[in-house]
């Protein structure tokens, strides 16, 4: 169509620009990783990988860990979601906290607090030792599985809960009226309907465990894991191994891509439908049954909350080096962080603020084009913007570090590369939040504005953007919350003086300075929670309305 270009070009150019940005900052680093693995003279990375049993062991361990954590997360998350949606029992409102906990507590902090409880020097370990009970070491498999399960199961819980809530009780009643017993009819009808959501949550957990760096590195002990070995190849003292780091990062990318394709295949094969309808009215449970179920659910919530309790206690406890003097209180930990070296805090605030603004700006514009202004580029933009889901944080970090350490765009050593890592890592997340309401804004609104004489781009700003504001506000708060706690990509690209709070926490844990790490953790939580609190209470932003 040659004519009437006038009302197309602007969006066309914007999408072209977005395309170029994505290719440079996303596709190019990915290709750098993949081609990097082929370097190394006559023995390229893949030959070395296959020759060394340590690498294959790491791959196997990573898969086993992901499978174990995923299964446990399903066992924990699904029943909990069923209880929360169908029954009313004492203390149920505590369950509503779960999504927030999952999103808010950085996993480094979770790992750290598990160590403070049951690590070699943990409170529980020592208490038991004093009565001659010796706990097995928490490092290695037990620590990894327990800590990661409690870090990630809430994702299964959230997606299952949404599915059960959207499930039409009439369906279930219809099945029951046909003569099957309540339990069997429930399973028969409910299971296929919520299956895709359970599956989606489970596979999300699977990919997150595979990409997990913080907990894996802190609690892994002697268990070799892919993400940790990749990290070590990238930052090893005495010379990184560029070929091996890109090979291992490629393996990580490949594994996640396989899982994501598996997910698509499963979902498409089942031809599942999203069922919408009347919500089930929760059945009140009381008496023994109520307390029993409430107690069980409460226990799970308390274990999920334990990191918080431990963290706050630790932050105000006197310490001498690695030794915690429980019961003696102090503010010295905070003083030291705030007075002697406030740089990580400032860095986190600045980098995250810039990254959130850039990320939300890009997401708003790109998701608008994907939903409302389809053209040649938008399908590619759609794919590219979800690509980071297939990249572990470590892989993103390595890709950026390798791509921008020289040449026309030299970013190594600047804060910009940390910001870039943040934006890319959280892009799918902010995209999804920003686009959530777009589907509810009819095209006709914009056309009405155009028909009244306002050009297309001004129309977007005058009538569409105001309607997106609630979604943008909540996307901003959520993106901020997940950005400030980013560790695995930033720890690879940062340079001296550019530490962020999570990096600092990681270093403090590594040096066994738990009290200071706790204090930094409390500050990090404040950085996450204060904006959430302000947004939801003062500005009435609804964080989870769109889910």
């Amino acid at each position: 169509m040659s004519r009437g270009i006038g009302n197309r070009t602007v969006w066309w150019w914007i999408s072209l620009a977005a395309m170029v940005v994505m290719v440079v900052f996303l596709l190019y680093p990915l290709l750098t990783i993949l081609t990097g693995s082929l370097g190394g003279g006559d023995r390229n990375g893949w030959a070395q990988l296959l020759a060394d049993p340590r690498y294959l062991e790491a791959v196997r361990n990573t898969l086993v860990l992901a499978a174990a954590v995923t299964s446990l997360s399903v066992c924990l998350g699904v029943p909990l979601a069923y209880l929360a949606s169908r029954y009313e029992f004492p203390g149920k409102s505590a369950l509503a906290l779960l999504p927030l906990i999952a999103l808010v507590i950085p996993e480094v902090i979770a790992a750290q607090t598990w160590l403070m409880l049951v690590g070699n020097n943990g409170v529980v370990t020592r208490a038991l030792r004093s009565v001659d009970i010796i706990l097995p070491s928490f490092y290695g498999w037990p620590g990894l599985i327990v800590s990661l399960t409690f870090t990630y199961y809430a994702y299964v819980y959230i997606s299952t809960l949404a599915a059960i809530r959207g499930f039409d009780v009439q369906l279930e009643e219809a099945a029951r009226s046909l003569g099957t017993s309540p339990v069997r009819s429930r399973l028969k009808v409910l299971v296929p309907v919520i299956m895709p959501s359970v599956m989606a949550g489970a596979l999300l957990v699977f990919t997150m465990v595979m990409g997990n760096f913080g907990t894996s590195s802190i609690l892994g002990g002697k268990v070799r894991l892919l993400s940790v070995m990749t990290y070590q190849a990238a930052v090893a003292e005495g010379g990184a191994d560029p070929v091996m780091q890109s090979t291992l990062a490629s393996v990580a990318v490949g594994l996640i891509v396989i899982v994501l394709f598996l997910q698509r295949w499963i979902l498409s094969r089942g031809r599942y439908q999203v069922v919408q309808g009347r919500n089930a009215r929760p059945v009140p449970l009381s008496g023994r049954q109520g307390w029993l179920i409430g107690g069980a659910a409460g226990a799970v919530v308390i274990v999920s909350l334990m990191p918080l309790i431990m963290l706050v206690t630790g932050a105000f406890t006197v310490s001498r080096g690695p030794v915690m003097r429980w019961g003696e209180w102090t503010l010295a930990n905070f003083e030291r962080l705030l007075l002697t070296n406030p740089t990580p805090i400032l860095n986190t605030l600045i980098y995250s603020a810039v990254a959130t603004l850039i990320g939300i700006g890009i997401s708003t514009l790109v998701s608008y084009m994907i939903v409302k202004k389809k053209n040649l580029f938008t399908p590619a933009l759609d794919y590219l913007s979800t690509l980071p889901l297939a990249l572990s944080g470590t892989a993103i970090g390595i890709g950026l570090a390798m791509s921008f350490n020289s040449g026309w765009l030299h970013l190594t050593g600047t804060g910009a590369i940390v910001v870039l890592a943040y934006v890319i890592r959280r892009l799918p997340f902010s995209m999804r939040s920003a686009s959530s309401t777009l589907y509810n804004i009819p095209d006709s609104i914009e056309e009405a504005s155009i028909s009244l004489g306002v050009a297309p781009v001004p129309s977007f700003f005058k009538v569409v953007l105001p309607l997106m504001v609630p979604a943008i506000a909540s996307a901003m708060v959520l993106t901020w919350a997940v950005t400030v706690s980013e560790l695995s990509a930033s720890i690879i690209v940062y340079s001296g003086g550019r530490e962020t709070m999570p990096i600092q926490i990681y270093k403090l844990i590594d040096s066994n300075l738990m009290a200071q790490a706790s204090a930094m953790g409390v500050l990090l939580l404040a950085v996450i929670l204060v904006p959430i609190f302000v947004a939801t209470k003062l500005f009435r932003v609804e964080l989870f309305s769109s889910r």
Partner: protein
Amino acid sequence: MGIDIQKLGVAYGDHRVIDGLSLKIEPGSFFTLLGPSGCGKTTLLRTIAGFIDAAAGRILFGDKDVTGLPAHRRDIGMVFQDYALFPDKTVNDNVAYGLRARGQDGATIRRKVGEALERVGLGHLGQRHPAALSGGQRQRVALARALVIQPTVLLMDEPLSNLDAKLRVQVRDTITELQREAGITTVFVTHDQEEALAMSDRIGVMKSGRLEQVGTPSEIYRDSVSSYVADFVGAANTVEIDAPGAAQGMVTVGLGGHSISARVPAPLAGSRAVLIARPEDIALSPQGTGGANCVQGTVSRRQYLGGKTHYLIGIGADVALAVETHGDGHDRYMPGADVDLSFDPMKTLVLAS
């Protein structure tokens, strides 16, 4: 200003939806595009508006070629099926939107907005948000918003179809009244034939991207050029018959073993044709009293509707005609009764099949 569409072609990718369509709409007239779902009404309307590019042909508003002009510079008013009010703005601000875009001053805007809302009977609701209005009120606001800018042409895509039956008639009257008053050339899209007949100066009946017939409501209804049009506009009995000799004008055709006279408005082609007779144009009388131009049949179903009665009458073994009777004793025939059906030769058409 009139609208002149010349050999227009529109395609979605490779899929041609409108092909070589030409149409002239008189200045100040109310033109309705009528047709079944998927025939291209919306596509044509949005191409006139400038939201879809023409792949071929030209569109003129008056003497001005607007084919290459983007929508926001075509000076159109548009009313949408889903109202498309700006939900975050008050009714006043919605109506003022187009005036502000035209840079008019505050006092003028306030006056015009007030007048426009008065005219649609919503003068008192200016401070409300669209969410606090009923469907009918919303569509009136949308109408005021489109008319207040005094556009060259007013385009409406099924503006009544989200309203319930009673409101539909009310808003329909408002639209007709305001359009007459403002004298704005209007293109109205609907698939409701009653709406089309009641509101329009002229109607264009569309069939898969082409205009099958363009004419006044009575031309469309009385002198349908095809069984497609006759069937779409009002109920019509259509019976496949053998084509009469190549004649045009009055002919004699066979129906259920009888011969009746009918009119052939346009030359026929081929050996088969269709006989078209509207239910209210067939008169019933007791057997043997039908006079000339009648056939015998048996009442197979009777449906009493108060002011009128619907019958289904079998003629021979395989033809059944719907008949509607009014006036005294319209309900007098019972199922099983033998009756004569009399046809008015002028209102009984034979068309190409």
